[in-house]
């Protein structure tokens, strides 16, 4: 019998927790000390229990007391106007009662040996209440997932479906109990039954939060991977800039030498040698001098590096750029977007015969437009809204490249469109100015 009381307390703890999660979907928590918050919740649980015992007969009075006390405590815990909180608590309680009611009706309809009178025994009503709480827990989590703005819950739809096995199983087991254990002779059997039911309830909650924590940790690992990729790209870029700078300085010094050499060859009428010599330095110079200037150091570095790379690979690189000196984007973000876009374009382009890359990077009155179109051999596959890599090696690191771009674009409130076509692929990004 004692066990029934423990069971009852636990059910109320569950109810109050669900209420807290429910309100938490719509309101922000107040900045309170953990001790104080804990105290309020314990207070609420105890008061609920007392009300449940005292007003056992009178449902209406019980609800009024419950709703009043719950809304006051929730108002102390959350940042929301009292009336809005009252509405939320009322709707929560409404769902609570509705679920309990529906559970009873469904049980009585589906199982002819269960009657409403049979369900009034303390054991049975506790079990019915347990079913109701599990369903309430699932409902509250579903509401939080679909309406909540906090990204703390990271289960996808599929994973959620797999999780629902637990509450579903719990509900079925408890229904089985109710349908078959009306007449229990020993109080020991009652206790064991309640123990099992309690354990199942516990298990549901533990499992849910366990999955949540595991997934959150995985998310963190992925974030770290993204970060590492970005750092790698940036380092490559800075190294390229510094090499380029050194080379250009060297060229300036060599200019004088070249001129003397040319004059000498010309004066000695060694025209063939002169021809060879000029071709040689022409190629060397072309390899180093920057052809594109957008008035933005980092953009220049990336674009020129990629332009040269494209030339070396025999890719026609068509550019449309303008003055980018007032770009809103941070250097590191710019590097992420440009290097990934252009790397992917060059890589895809290399494999086909007609190699063309069209690159547009302009700052307009209201937006920044970055667009890369490249010819390619095979059609890329879009699965689950994520691009599948056609690369045969290291598939993971390339998927991350595009996701990095998408995350960076989101950071600036921008939008993008990816358009894979028969023989070409385009990725266009629009980032608003404010």
């Amino acid at each position, binding site marked *: 019998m004692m066990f029934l009381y423990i069971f009852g307390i636990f059910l109320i703890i569950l109810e109050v927790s669900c209420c807290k999660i429910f309100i938490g979907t719509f309101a922000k928590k107040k900045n309170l000390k953990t001790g104080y918050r804990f105290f309020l919740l314990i207070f609420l649980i105890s008061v609920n229990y007392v009300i449940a015992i005292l007003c056992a007969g009178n449902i209406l009075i019980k609800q009024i007391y419950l709703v009043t006390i719950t809304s006051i405590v929730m108002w102390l815990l959350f940042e929301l106007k009292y009336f809005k909180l009252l509405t939320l608590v009322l709707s929560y309680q409404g769902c609570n009662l509705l679920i309990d009611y529906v559970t009873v009706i469904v049980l009585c309809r589906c199982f002819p040996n269960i009657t409403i009178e049979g369900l009034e025994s303390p054991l049975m009503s506790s079990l019915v209440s347990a079913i109701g709480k599990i369903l309430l827990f699932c409902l509250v989590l579903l509401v939080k997932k679909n309406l909540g703005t906090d990204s703390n819950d990271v289960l996808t739809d599929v994973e959620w479906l797999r999780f629902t096995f637990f509450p579903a199983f719990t509900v079925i087991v408890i229904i089985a109990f109710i349908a078959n254990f009306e007449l229990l002779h020993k109080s020991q059997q009652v206790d064991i039954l309640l123990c099992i039911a309690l354990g199942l309830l516990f298990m549901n909650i533990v499992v849910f939060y366990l999955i949540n924590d595991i997934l959150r940790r995985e998310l963190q690992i992925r974030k770290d991977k993204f970060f590492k990729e970005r750092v790698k790209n940036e380092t490559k870029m800075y190294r390229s800039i510094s090499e380029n700078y050194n080379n250009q300085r060297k060229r300036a010094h060599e200019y004088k030498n070249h001129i003397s050499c040319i004059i000498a060859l010309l004066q000695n009428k060694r025209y063939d040698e002169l021809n060879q010599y000029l071709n040689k330095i022409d190629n060397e110079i*072309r390899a180093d*001098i*920057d*052809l*594109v*200037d*957008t*008035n933005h150091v980092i953009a220049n570095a990336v674009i020129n590096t990629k332009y040269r790379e494209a*030339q070396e690979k025999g890719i*026609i*690189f*068509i*550019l*449309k*750029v*303008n*003055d*980018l*000196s007032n770009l809103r984007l941070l250097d590191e973000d710019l590097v992420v977007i440009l290097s990934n876009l252009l790397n992917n374009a060059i890589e895809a382009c290399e494999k086909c015969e007609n190699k*063309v890359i*069209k*690159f*547009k990077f*302009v700052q307009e*009155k*209201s*937006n920044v*437009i970055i*667009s890369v*179109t490249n010819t390619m051999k095979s059609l890329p596959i879009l699965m689950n809204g994520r691009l599948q890599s056609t690369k045969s090696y290291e598939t993971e690191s390339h998927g991350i490249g595009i996701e990095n771009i998408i995350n960076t674009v989101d950071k600036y409130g921008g*939008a*993008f*469109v990816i*358009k894979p076509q028969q023989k070409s692929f*385009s990725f*266009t*990004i*629009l980032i608003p100015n404010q």
Partner: protein
Amino acid sequence: MLKIAVCDDEKYYIEKIEDLLGSYFEDKGITYEVDTYESGISLVEQGEDILEYDVIFLDVNMKELDGIETAKKIRTYSQDVVLVFVTAYLTYSPEGYKVNAIRYLLKDNDGIERAMVECLDTIVSQVDFKEIKQIFEFQEGKKELILDNIIYIESNLHKLIFYVDYNKLVKYYMYKKLDAIEEKIKLNTFCRIHKSYLVNLKYVEDLQRYNVTLTNGQILNVAKARYKEVLNKYILFKGIV
């Protein structure tokens, strides 16, 4: 027949471009005519005759009147003539972007041939595109419109108002459903931003939640349900090189 002008103060490049044009057009069997100018000033002196040219190749780094300035002067005569900048290096010149050149060809010996082919391909298809015309039966009579000149079409209780750009705003009226007209003008540059508006993206300056601002300053509402699709079309349009 395509009339082309080439303006460069280095004879070497004038000849080079003429050669490239020659091989391209003879290959495609398109008749063309090339006029050459050795300075920006001599080109601009042609005044209104510039309108005869379909395409003008301009060297950016000319001594007296540089390519950008020449381009600006050309644009005062015509917004439609296709401009191609030929340059040793691609600088950002803000003015350069405003004159709306279709391509920048880099005087890079290796790549210039292939770049020229791509450039001419694009020009030929663009010139065709800009001349797409359709006949509409307005209340004012049957008229043939260049689709590219239509700014937007508004529907007001089954009465359609066509706002057309002929260097000044001209309105035409007809009684028809906007759906039917949208079906008739099947161009990617037209976007149904609202039940009552079919807009030519060329004249859209900015897109916000939930309206568009046109180049003439007018603001039209975008339907919330259509916003995502409109945004996609707008982005694709903006990304065209």
